[in-house]
């Protein structure tokens, strides 16, 4: 039975990212610890924001702020924001944009899966 498109859950999005990671790295399992490290790490090669935390803050449960426009960004963690990780296309779009901004490249499927399992784990 297939869930309708509008009922995507964060777990389904995570499962799909893990599946994509396994396609390039057989046996891959997502790691909360690696995801947290990735979330906080200062990156080089990007533009103005040098980490996820630059805009989303060190705490995925907190409201963030766009570093240039100062517009408020709603919390990332589904534990406090039920809209997050419920639309796969939305998630992909923001990985594409923000990975280019922070790392100057697209993220690998492994990075996306680690990031997601971390953000979903924050209760």
């Amino acid at each position, binding site marked *: 039975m297939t869930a309708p498109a509008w009922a995507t859950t964060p777990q389904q999005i995570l499962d799909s990212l893990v599946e994509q990671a396994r396609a390039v790295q057989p046996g891959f399992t997502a790691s909360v610890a690696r995801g947290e490290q990735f979330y906080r790490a200062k990156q080089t090669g990007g533009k103005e924001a040098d980490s996820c935390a630059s805009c989303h803050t060190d705490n995925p449960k907190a409201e963030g702020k766009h570093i*240039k426009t*100062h*517009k408020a960004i709603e919390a990332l963690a589904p534990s406090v924001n039920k809209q997050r990780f419920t639309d796969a296309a939305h998630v992909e779009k923001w990985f594409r*944009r923000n990975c280019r901004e922070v790392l100057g490249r697209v993220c690998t499927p492994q990075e996306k899966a680690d990031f997601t399992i971390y953000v979903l784990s924050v209760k």
Partner: protein
Amino acid sequence: MNVKSLAVLVAAIVLAGAWVGQGQADNEVVFPMPPGPLYVKECGSCHTAYAPGLLPARSWQKMMNELDNHFGEDASLDEPERLAILRMLTDHAADNPNANMLMRRIAASIPRDAAPQRITETRLFAFQHDEVPAHIWKRAKIGSKANCGACHTRANEGRYPEREVRIPK
């Protein structure tokens, strides 16, 4: 004066007041916004969903052709969304045929050979904000001239009337 003619007089005054009130509303800084959730969803994530009527269509056309480098950031969209939003922008731009008086003033103030990309660089913006001192813009809850919604409480609805302005401390 009997009761009936008094009632007529009162009704006339109320109606006249309503009409004058309506006249003032016409001069308020309010722009029509594109219908549906797409515009605010796609154009209001990183910044205020600016009213399309703040710039002419040629500005929006240029901007929507350069979304992969949108003021230095990647704001690229899938092609169906890009085209849908471009249409919304041009349909509600300052120089669209149904533009209100304010939008016509904005359109008329921009040289025909210019396609400004920053609303803050237009003459109307400078004129409307000339009484806001520099230290106010630097407040933590404002921080940027792009942050319309910090003070214009209903900016995402295209509403910028002065009486709805609340400047955060």
